[in-house]
C-alpha cells in the first residue's frame, strides 16, 4: 500500500511536470500586426468582485462592440487577456509583469482598478514606459503630469471629487457661507484608497469653516455598529460613505438602525452601484452618491452594445448588468482608451501602439461634446481635455439618488473647487519629486 501510494504520487507529479512543460512550449508566438493587445487587470473574486467584474466587463464589452461593428479601430482588432488580481497588490504587480510584454509592441496602457496596485506600479510603469490609467481613482497628485508623466487619474481625481461634494452640500444648504459650523463625518475604509482624501477634507474644512470627523472602518467592514453609534453621538449633518464592497452596504443598514436620514449620506462613486444597495433592501432608499457619468441604459452606445454584442451572445456578464453603474463606468474606460488609440493612429500611423505613443495620446486627448454625441455617449460622459500639466482632464461630477428601484440623477454637472485642489496637488507632487529625485518635465 505504501509503495503503491508512492508510485501514484510520483506518477501524478510527473504528469504535472510534463503538462506544464508542454503548455510552456505550446505558447502561441507573438500576435500579428493587425491586432492591438490590451491587458485587463480584473477582480472577479473576493469582497470587491462586483465592482471589478462590472467595470472590466463594460470595458471588454465596448471593445467587443468596436470589433463587431467596425472591425476594430481603423481596422486593427482589439484583443485582450484577463488576469485576476483579487484587489491584491502583489497579484496586481504579478499580473502587470505577466501581461506587459504581450502584443507586438507590448501593452499600451494598464488599468490597475485599485489605488493600492496603482501605487505599487507607478515606478515600474514609468520605467517600462507604459501609461497607467487610474480613471477616477489612484494617486491624486499624479494629476500633475510634469512629475508623473506615465500616470493618468482621468476625469476627476479624489480630491476634486471631495471638493465637488462640498460644493453640492453648499448648494443644498443655501450657499457656501452656510457651511460654517456644519458637521461632516468622513467614514472611510482603512486602506490606502480610503485614506487618500483625509488631507483634502481637512483643508476644505479649514477653508469653509465646517467640522470634519474621520472615522476608519477596519476592512472588510462587515460590522460597523460601533462606528455608527459614535456617529449617533456626534450627530453630524452629513456622512460621506467612502467604502468599497461590502463595507458600502453596511452603513445603509446601520443608518436605518439609528434613524440617520439616508438622504444626508453622500457616497463616493465606488459606493454607488446597484450591487452596493440591493443587499440593503429598503434601508437604501434615498441614499445619494456622486458619479462622474450617467446611469442607465438610455444611451445609444449602451443600447448598441446590448444589440450588437449581447444578442449574438458575446457579452461578458449577465445582460441584466448592462446599464448598471459599474458597467457604464467600464464602457467609459473603453471609450477613452479607444479615443486615445484613434489619436495615436492619427499621429503615428495605423499600427499596434506602443506605451510611449499611448502616453502621448493620453496627454493630448480632447474629447469634445460633438465627438461624445457621435459615439453615442451624450449624457453618459463629460467632455475631457488633458494636457501635459493636467493628467486629469477637468471632469465634473453628478449626484444620483437611489429611489428604491434604480439610480436617478438629481443634479446637474457639478464642478469641483479646482484651484484649491490644484494648489494642493502641485504641493504634493513637488514633494514626491523631491523625495524621488525626479526633475519635473517642462511642459510646453
Amino acid at each position, binding site marked *: 500500500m505504501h509503495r503503491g501510494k508512492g508510485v501514484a504520487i510520483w506518477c501524478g507529479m510527473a504528469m504535472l511536470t510534463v503538462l506544464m512543460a508542454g503548455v510552456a512550449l505550446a505558447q502561441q508566438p507573438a500576435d500579428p500586426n493587425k491586432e492591438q493587445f490590451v491587458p485587463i487587470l480584473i477582480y472577479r473574486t473576493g469582497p470587491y468582485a462586483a465592482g471589478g467584474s462590472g467595470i472590466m466587463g463594460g470595458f471588454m464589452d465596448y471593445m467587443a462592440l468596436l470589433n463587431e461593428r467596425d472591425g476594430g479601430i481603423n481596422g486593427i482588432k482589439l484583443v485582450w487577456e484577463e488576469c485576476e488580481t483579487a484587489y491584491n497588490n502583489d497579484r496586481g504587480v504579478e499580473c502587470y509583469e505577466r501581461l506587459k510584454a504581450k502584443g507586438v509592441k507590448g501593452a499600451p496602457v494598464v488599468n490597475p482598478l485599485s489605488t493600492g496596485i496603482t501605487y505599487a506600479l507607478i515606478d515600474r510603469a514609468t520605467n517600462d514606459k507604459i501609461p497607467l490609467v487610474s480613471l477616477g481613482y489612484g494617486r491624486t497628485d499624479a494629476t500633475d503630469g510634469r512629475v508623473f508623466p506615465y500616470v493618468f487619474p482621468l476625469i476627476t481625481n479624489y480630491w476634486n471629487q471631495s471638493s465637488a461634494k462640498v460644493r453640492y452640500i453648499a448648494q443644498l444648504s443655501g450657499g457656501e457661507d452656510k457651511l460654517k459650523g456644519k458637521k461632516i463625518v468622513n467614514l472611510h475604509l482603512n486602506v490606502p484608497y480610503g485614506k487618500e482624501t483625509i488631507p483634502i477634507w481637512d483643508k476644505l474644512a479649514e477653508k469653509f469653516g465646517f467640522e470634519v470627523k474621520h472615522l476608519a472602518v*477596519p476592512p472588510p467592514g462587515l460590522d460597523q455598529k460601533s462606528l455608527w453609534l459614535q456617529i449617533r453621538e456626534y450627530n453630524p449633518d452629513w456622512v460621506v460613505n467612502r467604502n468599497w464592497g461590502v463595507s458600502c452596504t453596511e452603513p445603509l443598514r446601520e443608518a436605518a438602525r439609528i434613524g440617520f436620514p439616508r438622504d444626508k449620506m453622500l457616497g463616493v462613486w465606488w459606493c454607488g452601484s446597484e450591487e452596493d444597495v440591493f443587499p440593503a433592501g429598503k434601508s437604501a432608499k434615498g441614499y445619494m452618491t456622486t458619479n462622474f457619468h450617467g446611469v442607465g441604459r438610455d444611451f445609444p452606445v449602451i443600447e448598441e452594445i446590448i444589440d450588437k454584442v449581447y444578442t449574438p451572445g458575446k457579452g461578458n456578464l449577465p445582460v441584466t448588468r448592462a446599464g448598471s453603474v459599474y458597467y457604464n463606468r467600464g464602457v467609459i474606460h473603453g471609450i477613452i482608451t479607444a479615443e486615445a488609440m484613434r489619436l495615436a493612429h492619427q499621429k503615428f500611423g495605423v499600427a499596434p501602439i506602443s506605451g510611449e505613443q499611448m502616453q502621448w495620446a493620453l496627454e493630448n486627448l480632447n474629447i469634445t461634446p460633438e465627438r461624445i454625441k457621435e459615439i453615442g455617449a451624450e449624457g453618459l460622459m463629460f467632455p475631457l481635455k488633458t494636457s501635459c500639466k493636467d493628467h486629469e482632464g477637468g471632469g465634473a461630477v453628478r449626484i444620483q439618488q437611489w429611489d428604491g428601484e434604480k439610480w436617478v440623477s438629481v443634479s446637474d454637472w457639478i464642478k469641483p473647487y479646482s484651484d484649491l485642489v490644484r494648489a494642493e496637488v502641485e504641493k504634493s507632487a513637488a514633494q514626491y519629486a523631491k523625495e524621488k529625485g525626479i526633475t519635473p518635465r517642462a511642459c510646453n
Partner: protein
Amino acid sequence: MNVAFFLEVLIGGMLSGVMYALVALGFVLIFKSSGVFNFAQGAMVLFSALTFVRLLEMHIYFWLALALTLIVMIVLAMAIERLVLRPLINQPLIILFMATIGLNFFLEGLAQGVWDNQVHGFELGINDEPFEALRQLTGILVSTFDLVAALIAGTLVLGLSLFFHKTRIGRALRAVSDDHQAALSVGIPLHHIWSITWAAAGIVALVAGMLWGSRLGVQFSLSLITLKALPVLILGGFNSIPGAIVGGLIVGASEKLAEVYLSRFVGGGIENFFPYLLAMVFLIFRPYGLFGDEIIERV
C-alpha cells in the same frame, strides 16, 4: 457619561455578539462530538447561504428551497466525514485542524465556483429599524432585526441543549466526545454520529448564513465571520453550547465598548483585534473558557 448611550452601545454590542455566537454554535457542535476544531465552519455558512439564495433566485418556492439546501448540507456532511475525517482518524488533532483549514479553502472555491462570486440580496422580511416600543419607552434604539436574531439564537441554544442532554442521540454524542474508544466499545456507531453532527453543524450554518446574509447580502465576506467566532469560543469554552452564547455576548459587548470609548485614545479600528486580545488573556489564565471542561493540558 451619557447612560442611555452607554446602554445602547452595550445592548447593541451584545446583540452583535449573539450573531457571532450563532456561527460559534456550529463549531461547538463539531468540537463536542469529535474534538475537531472545524475551521471550515465559515465556508459552510457561505456555502449554505449561497445555495439557498441561488435556489430562491431560480424561483423555487421558499420551503422547497430550504429543504433542498438542508439535503445538500447533509450530503456535504456525509462526504466530509467519509473523505476527510475517516482517513485521519488516529492523527493528532493538530493535523485535523490543518485539514479543516484546507477544507475551508476548498468549500469557498466550490461554493463560488458552482454558484458565482456576486453579491446576492436576500430579504427575510424582518425590519432592520429601531424597535418602536422600546424607543418610546426609553429612547434607546435597538434594531428589531437584532432582537429577532437573538430570539432565534436563543431558541437554537435551548433546542440544542435539550437535544444533547435529554435524547439518546445526544447522550451518544457526548459519549463520543469524551472518549472515542470507549464509545466504540459500548457500540456507538462513530461514523453515523459524526455524519449527524456535521449535518447539524451544517444546519446551524444555514441559519447563521440566512441571518447574516439578510443583513449584508450573501457574498464571499460571510466566510470571514469565522475569525470573529474564534474569540467567542475561547471565552465560552469549546464544548459548551450556552458558553457560545455567553462568550458571544461578552465579545460583542466588549468590542463595541472598546471601539466607542477607547478609540479616542488609541485610534480607530481596534474592534478587529480587541476580542483576540481578550482571548489571549483568557488563554493565559483560563484556557478552557468560562464554561468549558477543564481538560486542557498546560505546559
